[in-house]
């Protein structure tokens, strides 16, 4: 029984950063922009949370600095991919590289070579051994969903992602909406980074985001650009990772690599089956230039 509870708690801990990042990316992709740089935003957020927490001795301030750092990375994305209309995949890839380089260099400069042993103030764990960020992630699902589907701003966001020129003709400022969506995505991804440091293991290691940004991209797509879909997909990915850890602890000889590969295979199959069902924002990945 306690194993089951532990597994559920572990799943939530694994799923929370994935969920936060994928919600941010969902908002951005709904506006028609693919941000492959999610991984870099999470990594930057992770370091910013540790630094903020260390210098202010407050984990909440750490979360705040993670959000700000995520927004700063998003600004680079906005300038090149949205304002200058460069290829979104190129800018995203570059952001990942840049984040890897900058966080590695900065953490080495601040903590020296012993940076793995530095621990900072972590967030208090509230109920069920979950940090406040896990709960924030779950609460964000209905909020984001309501915002996308039931508010005027959410309608405009979706219009911009489907037919930017039509949205522009009816008075929407396409570039402004996309930029704001990118900033929201940056903030969410930054907080996702805080989730894996001050919310879980309060220390920083080079490249500690470990591919979570790419998993979050998979979650957005397999969740069909819907916050509740993201929740379901994030829990599946989280459970797969948790099952691997629990399996090792219990001495089960699961072929854990197969287990870990399964969510990706499932995502591919979902994509192959439903890519033309019209759920994907029609102008996804296409840069928009003012006429």
């Amino acid at each position, binding site marked *: 029984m306690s194993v089951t509870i532990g597994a559920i708690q572990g799943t939530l801990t694994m799923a929370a950063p994935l969920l936060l990042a994928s919600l941010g990316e969902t908002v951005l992709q709904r506006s028609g922009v*693919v941000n*492959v740089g999610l991984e870099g935003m999470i990594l930057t957020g992770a370091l910013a949370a540790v630094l903020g927490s260390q210098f202010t001795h407050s984990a909440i301030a750490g979360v705040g600095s993670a959000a700000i750092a995520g927004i700063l990375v998003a600004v*680079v994305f906005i300038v*090149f991919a949205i304002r*200058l*209309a*460069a*290829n979104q*995949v*190129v*800018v995203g*890839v*570059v*952001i*990942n*590289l*840049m984040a*890897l*380089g*900058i966080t*590695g*260099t900065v953490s*080495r400069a601040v903590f020296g*070579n012993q940076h793995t042993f530095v621990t900072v103030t972590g967030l208090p764990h509230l109920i069920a051994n979950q940090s406040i960020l896990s709960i924030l992630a779950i609460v964000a699902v209905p909020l984001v969903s309501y915002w996308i589907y039931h508010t005027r701003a959410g309608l405009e966001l979706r219009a911009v992602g489907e037919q930017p020129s039509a949205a522009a003709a009816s008075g929407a400022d396409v570039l402004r909406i996309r930029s704001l969506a990118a900033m929201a995505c940056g903030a969410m991804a930054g907080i996702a980074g805080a989730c894996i440091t001050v919310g879980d293991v309060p220390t920083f290691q*080079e490249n500690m985001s470990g*591919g979570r940004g*790419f*998993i979050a*991209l*998979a979650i957005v*797509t397999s969740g069909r650009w819907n916050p509740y879909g993201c929740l379901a997909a994030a829990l599946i990915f989280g459970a797969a990772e948790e099952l691997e850890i629990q399996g090792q602890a219990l001495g089960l000889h699961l*072929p854990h*690599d*197969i287990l*870990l*590969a399964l969510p*990706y*295979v499932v*995502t*591919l199959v979902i*994509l*192959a089956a439903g*890519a*033309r069902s019209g759920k*994907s924002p029609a102008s*996804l*990945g296409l840069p928009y*230039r003012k006429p």
Partner: protein
Amino acid sequence: MKSSPIPRMALQNPVLRIAAQSAGAIACLLLLLVITLVGLRIAPGEGLHQLWTGAVGSAEDGRLYPISATLVETAPLLLAALSVGIAWRSGMFSIGAQGQILIGGLCATISAHVLKNLAPQFVCTVMLISAMGGGSLWSFIAAWLKVKRGVQEVISTIMLNYIAIHVVGWLVLGPLRAQGNYLAESDPLPPGVMFARLIPAAWSDHIQTTLHTGVLLALLAAPIMWVFQFRTRSGFNLRILGANPNAARVAGIHTEYLQLLAMAVSGALAGLAGAIILLGSTTGSLPSVSFGGTSGFTAIPVALLGGLHPIGALLSALFFGGLTQGCRNLEQNTGVSSVVIYVIQAAAVLAVVGIRAMKERSEEAGT
């Protein structure tokens, strides 16, 4: 008064134009290096010296080790950059080179495992071919999903990268490892199968250098890809497709076939990179995690900085191969993390992207 017509005419000569562009690019990259070094509080002269010694070696010791290590670093980077180049040229923004490298290494290991009692030269050849085939197939999945099912290649190649990571982990820790091998890697290959070392130890103060025949294969791939892209009908159509998909369709070019072809070639090149990393290593065992480092990802900026052109990729891969080696030297002597190289790559690509976008904008404003 208009500017003098002479420089403009000179720039119409393609060789001179490329030379001028390269010189400009090298000057900008050097400037970027100096700025980075200053930012890291390292004296630029000293830093550049460290980078140069690490990448090329110094005149005093006359050893060939650094330059040989640079070329070994360059080979997989070049193949992966060629792979990225041909896919992106056809309008397929694949970021799957990393997974294809893994599958290439895996297929090579499997064929060596199956054929272990045959003649080494034959085994080596089959390994190279199967790596190309495996990488090609892996890339083809993404291409097929895009062309037939409309799945974005960016997402599908990310999925395939992760599936590749776990397939390698599963097979290496399972069937590809003999009983009693407790290392997290496949069994070592017989020495006869591995690539021959090209520089006799006597030439380099009796230090064994790592330069191997695989590097020659990689260097050969660049002109072959140039011929394919610029001297064959498919290559010509492919470039039209990448430049203007609508025009290609109107001109009656089989866009689906071309994208599948480009992705298959792209996968084969990345797969070959995997085999070359494996056959050029010390033992030839495939590790269960992080085989091939990050060359599949860094190949993207390398290819972009080479203008998605095979010869550009060659120059760019040489530069970044050397920079990687140089940064290792810098790291040893100053404690600066070698990941700083990513910042340099990223800044260079952003500069290129930014300049191109501004140019397009001013051209649009002009017309």
